Structures are given as structure tokens and as C-alpha cells.
């Protein structure tokens, strides 16, 4: 059984830029992503099921992250898998910014710092690590949309990860999450 793939591969009417899917997200950050309804009160991040209407690719990224980081080989089966790859690599980056000694406040500062930074590589840029697998956007306008969408992913992922890592309320980051900082999914890092 190889690494896990996205459940959004079969999603109809995907909006593609290059070969990256702009899937709807459940987020309040501003950007081009279609919005999914917020979670109802009886469901949390932890209990949401993949068949729920509010389940978004970022929920999937966080749930598959720990399993998939153990794998070095990953066969990309479609545009939704690229969203998953980007998300997993970004989660790795977020975790690498959190040090065991940081309080939630300090961690927030350093993580949001990278999440809000607009100067990051998107597919097609020279600094992007996975250009063999990702196509560059067709024109500048598309590139701008893609950048904004990825920006939304980054901010939302950063927020959700901070909540996960500091879930127990002790103000100390979870060592269970931090133990994954050394592993590299597909041997790559952003």
C-alpha cells in the first residue's frame, strides 16, 4: 500500500491553473478560492469526516501529513494531488519554525511571518522545488491568481496547524507534532 492520495481527485469542475487545482477552501481569508460553509457546531477539525460538505483539501493535508511524510515516493494522480503535496510541504515548513521552547504567542509570530510573506515561489518560478511535476501558469494574470490562492492555503494551514500543535492548552507545543520536523515528504522541502 503506497502513500495516500487526495479524495478530491474525482471532484467535478475543477478550476485549474497550470496543472494545480484551485479547490474550494473553508477559510475566511480573502482570495480567489470558493468558500465552503463553516463547520457546524457539533463537528470540529478532529472529527470531520471526508464525506462532509465542509471537508476541504486542508483538512486532508493535515490528516494525511503524518502518514505521508514517511514516504519518499509519491505518484501524482491528478491536480488535486498537487494541492496535497504543496500543503504537506508547507506543513513541514510550519513545524520547522516552531521550537520546543516557544510559547503559542512566539510561535504564532514566527509562523504567521512566513504565512503572510508574499515573497514565495509558485510553480514555474525558478525557486520552486517541484517544477518537474508542476506546470507553470499560462500568463501573468493566472500566475497572480495562483499566488493568491496559495497564499490563502498558507494562511489557513498556518492557523490550523497552530491550533493543532498547541491544542492541549499547556502553552507548550506538542512533541508528537514536532517529531515530524526532520522527515521530508518526497525528500523535498519548500
Amino acid at each position, binding site marked *: *500500500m*503506497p*502513500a*495516500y492520495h487526495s479524495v478530491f481527485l474525482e471532484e467535478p469542475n475543477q478550476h485549474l491553473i497550470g496543472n494545480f487545482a484551485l479547490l474550494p477552501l473553508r477559510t475566511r481569508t480573502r482570495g480567489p478560492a470558493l468558500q465552503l460553509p463553516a463547520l457546524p457546531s457539533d463537528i470540529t477539525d*478532529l*472529527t470531520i469526516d471526508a464525506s462532509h460538505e465542509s471537508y476541504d483539501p486542508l483538512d486532508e493535508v493535515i*490528516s*494525511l501529513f*503524518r*502518514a505521508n511524510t*514517511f*514516504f*519518499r*515516493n509519491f505518484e501524482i494522480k491528478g491536480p488535486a494531488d498537487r494541492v496535497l503535496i504543496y500543503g504537506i510541504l508547507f506543513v513541514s515548513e510550519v513545524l520547522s519554525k516552531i521550537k*520546543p521552547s516557544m510559547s503559542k504567542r512566539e510561535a504564532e509570530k514566527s509562523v504567521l511571518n512566513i504565512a503572510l510573506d508574499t515573497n514565495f515561489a509558485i510553480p514555474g518560478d525558478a525557486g520552486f522545488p517541484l517544477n518537474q511535476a508542476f506546470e507553470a501558469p499560462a500568463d501573468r494574470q493566472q500566475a497572480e491568481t495562483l499566488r493568491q490562492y496559495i497564499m490563502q492555503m498558507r494562511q489557513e494551514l498556518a492557523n490550523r496547524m497552530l491550533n493543532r500543535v498547541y491544542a492541549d492548552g499547556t502553552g507548550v507545543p506538542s*512533541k*508528537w507534532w*514536532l*517529531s*515530524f520536523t*526532520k*522527515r521530508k515528504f518526497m525528500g523535498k522541502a519548500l
Partner: protein
Amino acid sequence: MASHTPAVVMDNGTGYSKLGFAGNDSPSFVFPTAIATKSAGGGAGGSGSGRPAVANKPSFLTGGAGPGGHLSGKRGTEDLDFFIGDEALSAAGGPGYGIHYPIRHGQIDDWDLMERFWSNSIFKYLRVEPEDHHFLLTEPPLNPPENRENTAEIMFESFNCAGLYIAVQAVLALAASWTSSKVQDRSLTGTVIDSGAGVTHVIPVAEGYVIGSSIKSVPIAGRDITNFVQSLLRDRGEPDSSLQTAERIKEEYCYVSPDIVKEFSRFDRESDDRFKKHKVTYPNGKSVEVDVGYERFLAPEIFFNPEIYSSDFLTPLPTIVDTVIQTSPIDVRRGLYKNIVLSGGSTLYKDFGRRLQRDIRHLVDARIKASEAKSGGAKSGGLDVQVITHKRQRHGPWFGGSLLGQTPEFRSYCHTKAEYDEIGPSIVRRFALLGGPGST
């Protein structure tokens, strides 16, 4: 008189030797197949070999003589100065002794040391007179007949044992599974998955005979699981991440999960239940607590997803088992799928058998579906995949030997000392099949 003594069952493996008497339900002795000798000590070096004897013994015993003593040296009693098993390990810890492992990759590597190992096993541990007992020894699959002859030479000529039977470990492991309630017919057809410390073998057996051309081995076994647990402990920076701790955690807390992603989210939801604490106590009385987390299900997962641990071996165990059966003769495949038997310490994880059965069944069902589609309308009757988990897995081959060694007809299957004297060592090239068709 000899007719009332129980047979002696000895299963000498690469890692551990299991010794005991037929009819018992567990071996009397289990210790490492290791021997510590004085002369030409492996790691100890020449300079250490004589000195400790002088230091340890009062001078009136050595007669004040130099290293080794002048008389005992000439009589060759240093031949008798050795330890086996756990004693060997502790003796090798001190100076003067070198440790040797006479069995490598399941086969006897050093016959002289093995003879000494056996002599101590028989006289010091089991304390029996070999003249009065029949012996049941085990051998790995594909053991060359010359090795059997050497074994017989030692057993008959050095020890003068009453009778000898040499059985293949995989066949004995099949016999051990007869204790499971899932086994209805006591057949000797099945696939044995034998996973010990160093290597995992998948061995197809048809009616008591090993199908040698289809055997496959997997370089993932107990030691790799321990190493993987250790690397996970180190990633987290646990206060104690020694191999011993990793091994204890592996043995006490690990289990096989149906799906690792689901198991991760289960740990998130039921964290109080799932995360454990392991207390390590040191000889000096201090102790530390080590958290035990995802390694509980990730460690045995390397059998099913080797990729998470190794970068050069990627085939999951269920796929290997399926290949082994598919390369066996077509008329025994059904029997091989129906009776997949586990043996060895690394198969003891909870739900190991269930997961293996599920994964193999998926592979088989997918293939049947594909061929049904190709045939255009033909329906398959289906194929029964069954993995047998039983209570004797840990010492499977030994227990199978104990089971067969206590049957009344066991003695008639053995070669006796008289037969050996008449025909010579080549007699042990063939044994009638114990527990096979025709016997009760």
C-alpha cells in the same frame, strides 16, 4: 527402559536455541545460540586469554604456574573451558573469552563449536543420558544433505544417542498450528511465515515437502522494528532511546492498525487512551519515563509498508506471500491460500494475522475480478484466504516438534544407532514424513 523416556526436542536457530522434551507445551530452556571459548577469542585478543585465569584462581589451583598452567595445557582441558547461552554472553563481557555464534543464516557454520554447544545443552542443561533418548532436531529449509550427515555423525558418534529424527522447521511450524481451532484437517500443506530477529521467510509447504523454488525471504524482521522504534524515539528526543528500551516498547505496546491515517486521527481524538508512558529503571535505581506514541502502530507497519522504513526494499509482505503462492504448483495453491501459518516472535503483534489476511484477500479478489472481466462472463467460485493465528507462534517449530515427538509412532520414524552403524551417515539423507498422510 529406553521405551519410556520422552524424546528430546532441540530447535537451534540463528538467534535462540529452544530445548525441551516432547509432550511439554513449552521448551525447558531458551537461550541465545552463542558459545564463549577461551582459545582464539574472537574479540578478546591473545594477550587477554591467559591472564584472567591466573587472576581469578587462587595460586594453589594453578600451582603458581603461568598462563594456562603447564599440566592442564598438555591434557587439553582448555577444550572444556567454555560457556553457552546466557552464560556465554556474560562470560564474553569479561576478559579472556571470545563469543561465537555457531549458526549463521539458520545453518550450522562451525561444527566443532556446535558439537560443544550440543554437549553442554545435553549434559549441563537438559541433564539427560543421550543413550536413553531419541532426539528430534530441526533444520532450515534447503539445508544441504551433507549438513544432515554431519549432524548425524555428531549425534551418533559423539553422543551415542538412541535415535535421531531431523525435521524441517517450516513443517513443524505447520504442525504447531494444529492447536488452533480454525484448523479442521491436520494437513501438512500451507504457507509458513516465519519472522524472527534477522529475517522473515515465506515458505510454501505441500504435503510435508517444502517447495524450495518458491521460498522468498524479506529483509525486514524483529531487529528492524526495534531500530525503527528507536529512530522514532530519537526524533522526539525522548530521555532514553537505547536499543533495550526500544525493544521493550516494541514488545509491550505495539500492535497492527487497519489503516495508519485513521489510526493517527484516533490518537488525536482519544489521546488519553492511546498515548502510553513507559518507565525505564536503571540498575542504579534511577528511573525515567518515556512517552510511547505513534510507534505503537507504525513499527509493525513496516511489514505492510516497508517504504516508511527502508529505501531499498519496498515490497509489502502480503504481496510477497501472494507471489510465493502464485509461483507454486497450481494444484496446491488453494491449500496454500487456505492455510497461512504464522511463526516466530515478530508475528505476535495484535491483529497481525487479521491485517495480513485482509491485504492478501484484496490482492486475490482483485486478480479474480480482473480475470472474470477478461473471460467475458465466467464466474469464479472464489478463493478462501485464511491466516492462522495460534497460541504457539513464538516457539512454533519447537512446539510442532514436541507435538510430533510425543506420538507413539515417532520412534519408528527415527533412525537408530544400530541402523547408523550398519549403513553409515548417508542414512539420514532421507526420513519418512512424520505426521504426514498414513500416520495417525
